[in-house]
């Protein structure tokens, strides 16, 4: 069976789709934080964000889990790509995990040269593909869908970021934070006034 391997540009398209999907999750959460009415509420939602996204192990391994069950990460599926072994068959869970964690680490050495090796390799394998004998194949020509979804994600992200910035500048949180900062500034000034030595005490008696 003829296997059609994915070019560097298709893989890049899939990677960009993945990146913007993850970015969208972060921006969504941050918008939700900024939509809260009080700083106390916003703090609780911020801690929830830390639990749900940056520290969530599932998020870090989602591409490995999706690749095992569906053949590729979300970005790859949208672009019509799949990760298989060199015979076109699915890979084992251990190999997929190795590829998506330590394999990527190996490719990142020497300024990410491992990723760019796809450009010159006859089988279009990156270094992380070579470590476990995987190929990224085109199972369906869907690059148009990948391009459209990428454009949609970029626009959506931009719109959400702009909305978040607007919320940050107009929400009641901003007033509460500014109030807190003003309180802190006035406390600082008061402390500085209390610590300053009175002028009469600093001038010698004969000059008074």
């Amino acid at each position, binding site marked *: 069976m003829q296997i059609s391997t994915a070019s560097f540009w298709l893989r890049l398209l899939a990677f960009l789709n993945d990146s913007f999907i993850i970015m969208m999750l972060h921006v969504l959460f941050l918008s939700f934080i900024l939509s809260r009415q009080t*700083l*106390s509420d916003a*703090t*609780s939602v911020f*801690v*929830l964000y*830390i*639990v749900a996204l940056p*520290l*969530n*192990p599932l998020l870090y391994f989602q591409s490995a889990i999706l690749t095992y069950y569906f053949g590729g990460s979300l970005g790859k599926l949208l672009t019509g790509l799949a990760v298989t072994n060199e015979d076109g068959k699915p890979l084992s869970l251990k*190999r997929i995990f*190795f590829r998506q*964690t*330590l394999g990527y*680490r*190996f490719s990142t*050495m*020497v300024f990410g040269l491992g990723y760019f090796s796809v450009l010159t390799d006859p089988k279009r*394998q990156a*270094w992380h593909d*070579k*470590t*476990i*004998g995987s190929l990224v194949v085109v199972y369906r020509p869907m690059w148009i869908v990948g391009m459209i979804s990428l454009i949609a994600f970029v626009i959506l992200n931009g719109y959400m970021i702009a909305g978040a910035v607007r919320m940050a500048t107009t929400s009641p949180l901003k007033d509460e934070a500014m109030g*807190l900062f003003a*309180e*802190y500034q006035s*406390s*600082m000034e*008061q*402390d*500085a006034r*209390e*610590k300053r030595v009175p002028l009469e005490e600093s001038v010698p008696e004969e000059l008074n």
Partner: protein
Amino acid sequence: MEKTESDWSIEALYRGAWQIVKHNPVLWLFGMAAAIAGSGYNFRFPDVDPQGWQKIFEDAYQQGGNDAVLGNATSALFESVSQLFAHVPVWLYVAIGIELLIFLAITIVLALIYSNWANASLLSGIQLAMQKKPVSIADSSERALSKIIPLLQTTFVPSLLLSVIMLVVIGMLAMGIAISPSGLKAIFILFLIVWIAVLIVAWFLLSLTLIWASREVVVHNKKPREALGHGYHLAKKKFWSMLLLGFVNNIVTTMAIAIPVGLMIGALVGGFFAFSSYKSLGISLFVFGGTLLFLFLLAGWVIAGVITAFKAAVWSLALEAIKDL
């Protein structure tokens, strides 16, 4: 023919190792991976240090009493921020704690796997080169994947055991020194000195054993226990030769790094001092030193990879010379 003490010549080992490393750049990559992974054994989890954050908050809280300028302002701000975080449900903090523990465990496991995979791939690649076969990432890694667990058992378990025994005995002797009457203290101190000497020899022997044992596992497909046994046997027989080879390896690799680093530092420092009196000389030295620094930053890890691969090739060739002992 009976094997003699000098079963290898350092010159022949170095010449052979250089030929292997020079013609197989793939080995530099595995050397780099092994060199980078070496730092994984520190079990660091960067960016998150719960005790560090606690200290920062404690210091910030106490700073109000010590700092003459900020005084109560800092503690008032800290109190306001603490009150905000005090309203967060406790289960979220528990979840953060669990996630951090999971991350720590995963980081340690991945670091161990990466390090052992890199070493196994390097040794497999060197073996392919010694057999005059082409060395590729795919072939070396494929051979290494099945050796990760046996190699981990071979290298990690004995080191962990020795560390535990060392800590337990030192702990007991330290307690004995602390609580025993002054007459008996001298005996405990003597035991401690003897124990430390025994530990030094034990660590040396273990390090030398593991050099052979790891190759027996990866190249000769031996089981960990068998590999450790044979490695220990070879390490005892070739103890002084190995120490000499290791010493020479370290001297050569130190010189390989120290000479360009010394030139770079000398040029930069010389340029700094010469700049005030002889501007043109100072600028030339700065440019020369700066260029060396830039190249070092760019190629530093590649150099580390080449050196790691070279040292590994030296030991692999040495094992080939004495494997039937």
